[in-house]
């Protein structure tokens, strides 16, 4: 089954959990929850606006995880948190004072204050299955990778069209859950057509990993999603959905939007002969 992971900015509206449930009802396989950051380096205008709106409402990592925890019984699909390094590395979002480990360093300001270890534990406690941090590339990932593994969180790594073969292979080895293929050399946002770089990247990734390859960035319509899904194992849909939410669309409206993407991917599944079992594994662990 081709995977559909729609994106939702946590806390974007007071009833944001209703959008999440609507995504689930519409056939999403997982949902990417954006934990809003003031300076999102890889996001285009729409996701930036969504993050700004959530932050203006007072959304925090803590409040979003609290909302998720409260809705846990109603959520049956995996959730993947997506956020930026500053929120992950600055430490425990629930700490109001430096963690005890800092006191032993003479009160000197350190990078820990809970750090990614506490961050990942909190995600796990809230029922979040995975984490995506686009500004932590392989070169900086060691500590976060260990923290995620210790907390039982899948750290999903990203690959880009310009990623050279040796890095791509390492990303394939070290990613968990799935691999996020950034299909275009651009920020997030809607595009008129699927980027020509999407399919070649998916093919290169599938040659180096058994993990599912999900394509994201600029996939804006069900038709584009179908094209992308033929190249990979599924898609992430972000800006196209968040623009609708920003424009005031209701959870019911978004249920219909996501259902249209689901239908397009189901159509692709019907085109493809039954895949061998190894292509259908959940991919959580190899």
């Amino acid at each position, binding site marked *: 089954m081709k995977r559909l992971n729609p994106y939702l900015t946590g806390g974007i509206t007071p009833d944001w959990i209703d959008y999440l449930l609507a995504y689930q009802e519409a056939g999403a396989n997982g949902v990417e929850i954006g934990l809003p950051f003031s300076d999102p*380096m890889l996001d285009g205008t729409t996701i930036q606006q969504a993050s700004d709106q959530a932050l203006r409402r007072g959304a925090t990592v803590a409040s979003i995880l609290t909302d998720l925890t409260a809705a846990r019984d109603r959520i049956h699909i995996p959730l993947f948190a997506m956020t930026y390094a*500053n929120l992950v590395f600055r430490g425990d979002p629930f700490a109001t004072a430096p963690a005890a480990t800092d006191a032993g360093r003479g009160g000197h300001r350190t990078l820990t204050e809970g750090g990614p270890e506490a961050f990942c534990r909190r995600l796990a406690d809230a029922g979040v299955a995975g984490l995506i941090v686009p500004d932590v*590339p392989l070169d900086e990932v060691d500590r976060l990778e260990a923290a995620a593994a210790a907390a039982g969180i899948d750290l999903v790594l990203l690959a880009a069209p310009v990623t050279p073969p040796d890095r791509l292979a390492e990303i394939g080895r070290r990613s968990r859950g799935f691999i996020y293929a950034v299909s275009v050399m651009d920020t997030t946002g809607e595009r008129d057509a699927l980027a020509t770089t999407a399919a070649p990247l998916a093919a290169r990734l599938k040659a180096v990993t058994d993990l599912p390859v999900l394509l994201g960035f600029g996939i804006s319509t069900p038709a584009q999603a179908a094209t992308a899904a033929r190249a990979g194992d599924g898609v992430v849909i972000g800006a196209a959905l968040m623009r609708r939410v920003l424009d005031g669309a209701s959870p019911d409206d978004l249920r219909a939007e996501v259902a249209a993407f689901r239908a397009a991917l189901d159509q692709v599944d019907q085109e493809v002969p039954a895949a061998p079992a190894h292509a259908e594994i959940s991919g959580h662990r190899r």
Partner: protein
Amino acid sequence: MSVPTATGRFGEFGGRYVPESLVPACAALEAAFRDAWADPAFHERLARLRQDYAGRPTALTPAETLSAQLGVTLLLKREDLAHTGSHKINNVLGQALLAQRMGKTRLIAETGAGQHGVATATAAALFGMRATVYMGERDIARQRLNVFRMELLGAEVIPVTSGSRTLKDATNEAMRAWVAAVDEAHFCLGSVGGPHPYPWLVRELQRVIGEEARAQTPVIPDVVVACVGGGSNAAGTFAGFVDTPARLIGVEAAGGAAMTNGRPGVVHGYRSLVLQDADGQVLEAESIAAGLDYPGVGPEHAHLGTTGRAEYRTVTDTEVLDAVRRLARSEGIICALESAHAVAWVLRAAGTPDLPTGSTVLLTLSGRGDKDMATLAGEVA
């Protein structure tokens, strides 16, 4: 000052926190910089540009009246006399040469006060490249003159309307634009922040300030002082004196003091001290000087500060305006609001234990105040 580690660290600060899309570009830039920096022909060309085009070496001016008034010997390193009116040209000429060497045809830059944007537009014109400069709407409003200069030089100035509409957001937008244009464009970063190798690269290109000053001063000064936003003029100045007994003092805007009030964090591709709230959201800095309106500081400054090799102080906008007036009336030099932060600290500290009478002070005037006339007209009586 030290060479960063293989991962671009100065102590615990620095690094390369960028999307995978930008990792190859950062790696290619690092390789090109290492190659160029080991090439005598590159240095020769850069030195010629600095001399024949930028007007280096810049003067070292004894501030005689102020020195007599304050009881210290104050020497001014005159980056305001460099072409385009600030130290920014040092960095940009080097990066443009590097970009040309890498086959790039376009420069993307962020700017706050506009001085880095003007320098980038200038180098692009000189090298026959396109220049796209991202500038916050709020800064565009208060730095009109520099916007006109950039446009006259042929650069495209793109207003940034997100967030605080200042340098922080212009930097985000420039980095996003770089992702989409990485094949043809070099991101000509203006300060000692950003992902590795930028903090190192920019400091090496600004090192000329400190090295010239060192050669121009008859004695090693007791104190070396420079303003700090991102911190490029201070990094370049300090580089000339870090191996001496001189105290190194960086002066921040009270409303934008990442060294003083920041906490460890990651923004704009590097880990350093960052102004942020309890939730990790980056705060908007506030300063009368658009160039210091920035919530982060270069990672090497964070390292120098935490190891104690450099000290960091803050001054208020009111002190800065007073410093502009004092320097103008005593020495006939109208300096940039940014540079006036360093002057303001000297005015406050002279004769105190922080800067005892009889001290020799080397102060980098990072730029001239022409760009600030609209602000100053309303503020300085």
